[in-house]
């Protein structure tokens, strides 16, 4: 009976639905080589509950790689390639155009048909037809934005991806999942005890995290499709800092069960626990390299917390950071070439990146309390937590530090962000 109640409680929490507080986004800065693109209102999109093209344009602007161009004076707006006056758009210094139309289908769904055009070449870069319901307007806009992004940059866009983060409001902690633009937030877990260190499984179906609901840190894996969760590490002492292997089969975590805080690797269901590091120091914050062969981690074995790497199969660790007395929270870019981490400079905790090929380090922010960096799956942005006016906020910066956005929730602390993987198409 008790078990049944627990399952029911977990289920209730899992489906507790739409989050009350929405993230709001503010973008600052701008890249030098932004592509000027005009997203023209789609014919017939007034019939939708909300605008498609506003969301597409916002997605493109948020990436920092595009500059929105406006259609002032163009009337009527073209909805088919044949209607475009390329000379006019060229004189407006517009490189790309997105045009389209929306129609209501007999079954009540909608159909969006759009084209992306290269203005200098006066050529179509392709188009797609999407069929969607009223509830899928934003999701459809994100997919169109990702199509445009990929055609114009040659890289995958992240508008359709999701982020996880923790909101603390008074004594209440919520693990929330939202679209990458902060909209459509859902509560995956609500608790009166802290929740930290959410990490997406590589397929985006599960989150590993640390919950303090049993008065100490315990590692859970939570399925986002079923809402079911299970304990993967609840040994004597503390259990924390979960990290997924790229194949989703293994988890690295920090356990204190054998004394001190040491790295262990286990199967994703918590079985077959083996110890990875053997030091008398702190070893924590493991993170797998994209090829799964190396684990980066934080250790104070050299006297101050610094970043090290160790073969995932065990072996000798080697030190990565030397500059400064506090370098923590290593996170690798999806291509494995860049390391994001937090460095302490004159008492300020700032987001930094290191090019692993030449070990060049660059501090990306000028804030005081940066924490928990997380790369977008295309490696172009880094999401992190920081503090503004005494409150926790999320920020995202382009990996070169040029474009920054801030995501805030009114009257609440937002922290512990984790950018989810690409969704399978």
């Amino acid at each position, binding site marked *: 009976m008790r078990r049944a109640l627990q399952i029911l409680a977990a289920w209730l929490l899992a489906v507790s639905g739409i989050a009350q507080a929405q993230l709001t986004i503010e973008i600052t800065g701008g890249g030098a080589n932004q592509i000027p693109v005009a997203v023209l209102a789609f014919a017939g999109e007034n019939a939708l509950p909300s605008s498609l093209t506003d969301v597409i344009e916002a997605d493109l602007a948020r990436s920092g790689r595009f500059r929105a161009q406006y259609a002032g004076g163009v009337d009527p707006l073209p909805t088919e390639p044949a209607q475009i006056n390329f000379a006019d758009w060229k004189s407006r210094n517009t490189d790309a155009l997105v045009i389209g139309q929306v129609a209501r289908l007999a079954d009540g769904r909608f159909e969006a048909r759009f084209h992306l055009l290269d203005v200098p070449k006066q050529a179509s870069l392709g188009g797609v037809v999407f069929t969607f319901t009223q509830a899928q307007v934003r999701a459809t806009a994100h997919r169109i934005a990702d199509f445009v992004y990929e055609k114009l940059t040659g890289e995958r866009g992240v508008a359709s991806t999701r982020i996880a983060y923790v909101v603390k409001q008074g*004594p209440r902690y919520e693990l929330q999942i939202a679209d990458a633009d902060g909209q459509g937030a859902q509560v995956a877990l609500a608790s009166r005890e802290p929740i*930290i260190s959410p990490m997406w499984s590589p397929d985006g179906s599960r989150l590993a995290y640390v919950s303090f609901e049993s008065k100490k840190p315990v590692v859970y894996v939570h399925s986002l499709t079923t809402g079911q969760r299970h304990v993967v590490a609840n040994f004597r002492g*503390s259990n*924390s800092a979960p990290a997924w292997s790229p194949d989703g089969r293994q988890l690295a975590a920090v356990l204190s069960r054998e004394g*001190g805080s040491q790295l262990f690797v286990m199967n994703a269901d918590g079985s077959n626990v083996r110890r990875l590091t053997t030091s008398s120091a*702190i070893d924590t914050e493991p993170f797998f390299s994209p090829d799964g062969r190396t684990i980066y981690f934080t250790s104070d074995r050299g006297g101050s917390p610094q970043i090290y790497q160790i073969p995932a199969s065990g072996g000798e660790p080697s030190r990565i950071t030397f500059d400064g007395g506090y370098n923590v929270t290593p996170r690798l870019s999806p291509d494995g070439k860049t390391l994001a981490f937090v460095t302490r400079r004159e008492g300020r905790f700032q987001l930094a990146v290191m090019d692993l090929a030449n070990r060049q380090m660059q501090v990306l922010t000028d804030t005081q309390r940066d*924490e928990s960096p997380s790369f977008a799956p295309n490696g172009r942005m880094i999401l992190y937590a920081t503090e503004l006016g005494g409150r926790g906020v999320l920020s995202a910066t382009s990996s070169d530090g040029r474009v920054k956005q801030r995501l805030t929730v009114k009257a609440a602390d937002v922290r512990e962000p984790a950018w989810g993987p690409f969704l399978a198409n």
Partner: protein
Amino acid sequence: MKKKLIAAVALAVLYGCAGEPAKEEPKAGVEERTPGAAQKPAPAVRPPAAAQPVTPPRVKIDPLKDPSNILSKRSIFYDYDKDEIKPEFRPLIEAHGKYLAQNKGAKMLIQGNCDERGSREYNIALGQRRADGVKRLLLLMGASESQIESVSLGEEKPRCNSNTEECYAQNRRSDMLYSGEY
């Protein structure tokens, strides 16, 4: 009737005081309790019979809750980024070590805590090291391994919430909690 009532109230207050010291050390790790739970009021109504004894019954004072006993103190404080136990906290830990050695049925949870600066996960590890240090000293005093679990709350359960040095100092601590206190 009125006299009886006064006597009952007086006795109830007496009971309340003996069993539950009104002012305890601020309890750590129990922030989730409803305010005032630590100062449980005496039962409002006692059976009339309770008003009859002339001398109050002797109540054995729990040394862990007796404010005049060192065992009622439970917190050890640290310097920034440090886990060394300062000399002034050794007698406190030694007293608890002896208590655990003499009361083999007693169980303790040590929660290590940090101030909010720096990485949350690194702070979990730092809090663990603080708690482990306290545990080591307790074992040295004769407590057994099976009596003590040391865990870390990192920076997640601050006792004080401002960005001041005074607050940070209160949050860098280990709390020793016995069964039923967490």
